[in-house]
């Protein structure tokens, strides 16, 4: 089973679009290939922006866990 140790946990709640995506990108920029970064967002725009960007760059969206009005996106840097 792949390692799901979170390298960086980013709390971007309260940050408006595109803050959560930009914080995720910054976190993944400093991560090594194979590492996993998570971002917590309560901005509705993230539900579209983050999965779209992850698909565009070709990383892996490991999970998108929604609780109430916030979603935690877990992304693995694959290349």
């Amino acid at each position, binding site marked *: 089973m792949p390692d799901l140790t979170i390298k960086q946990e980013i709390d971007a709640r309260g940050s408006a679009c595109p*803050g959560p995506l*930009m914080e995720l990108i910054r976190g993944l*920029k400093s991560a090594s290939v194979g590492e996993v970064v998570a971002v917590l967002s309560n901005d509705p725009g993230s539900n579209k*922006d983050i999965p779209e960007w992850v698909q565009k760059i070709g990383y892996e969206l490991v999970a998108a866990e929604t609780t109430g009005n916030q979603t935690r996106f877990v992304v693995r840097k694959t290349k």
Partner: protein
Amino acid sequence: MHRIVILGAGVGGSVLANHLAEHLKEEIASGAVGITLLTDNPEHTYKPGFLYVAFGKDEARVFRRPVRELLNPLVTLETETVTGVDTKTRHVHTQSGRRFAFDQLVLATGARVLPQATPGLAERGNWFYTLEGALALRQKIDQIEGGRVVVSVIGIPHMCPVAPLEVTLILEDLLRLRGMREKVEILYTYPINRVHSIPSVAEWAAKEFESRGIRSETFFNADHVDPEKNVLASLEGTEIPFDLLIAIPEHRSASYLEDSGLAKGGWVATDRGTLAVNGQEGIWALGDTTDLPVSKAGSVAHYQAFVLARNVVCTFRGRKPAFQYDGKTMCFIETGLDSATFIEFSYLRPPRPQRPSKMIHWAKLVYNNTYWLNVRGVF
């Protein structure tokens, strides 16, 4: 004496200092209150002027004034380079070894431009977010003879969020005027899936770009510049060769704020209404240095200064700081050499760009001059 210390003499710090001096003139005269403004630069610069400098429309000196001339005489001005803030002993430390005690502290330190944060950018890129950068870009724009110009927004958030659109649209107009539009490809890149962070502005700008033959690439997060090959490479794997790269580099707040524990992730966590720094007593922030979901624009700092002056006065008088900033923002958007539009919005009311006109462009030029009254707190 109740000591109010303001760090930074940009639009936020200056307007705030002038409003406070007006509110508290009797207390300052009696010695009950002191307002001290610290800045490392005795000259105030109207930063939107850099755009005009880059296109050779104005000289840099037009956009600069001595800070002292802009401040109410009741404000004490100290030219000092701040090195740190001790929130426990409530002192500001400076490079010269002086210490300034405060009862209330306001962080109006603005944003720094960090081209060095993107490998290769400082060697091969150009930008207009500093005076030196705008002057260097002016020479490059004068020399354009053909090829590809790339306007790339690298860091979000950055100062004046509409300026990348402005530089792109003015350049397009200028090249048309020079009769060389057909020889130059203009390509605009943006980190998210549209051409601006605000959806309504992005929708308007995308149509403007399309009608003027400006290409755009979204979800483009610049990773590095290859200075040998003149190539801009993205995290997403795209490589764009360029003849001229106009970049909007990464921005951050003052470095000593991170070291002092007041900023995290580049910006100061601030209450969106009262403008109090989260977790601090009697410490406030306004303008570009905050982490608020508003534009890093002069108008924001200006409107925030009205609110913050009242909250600082309330705190001095032992009352609850109850005044609230509502996210009010106003930005002109130059859409060419002689046309412009504007947007006005708040936390709850999104902007609706108006149809560009000469009249709005002239209003912007008038504002560029009346700014010097604005910053004095006249209106």
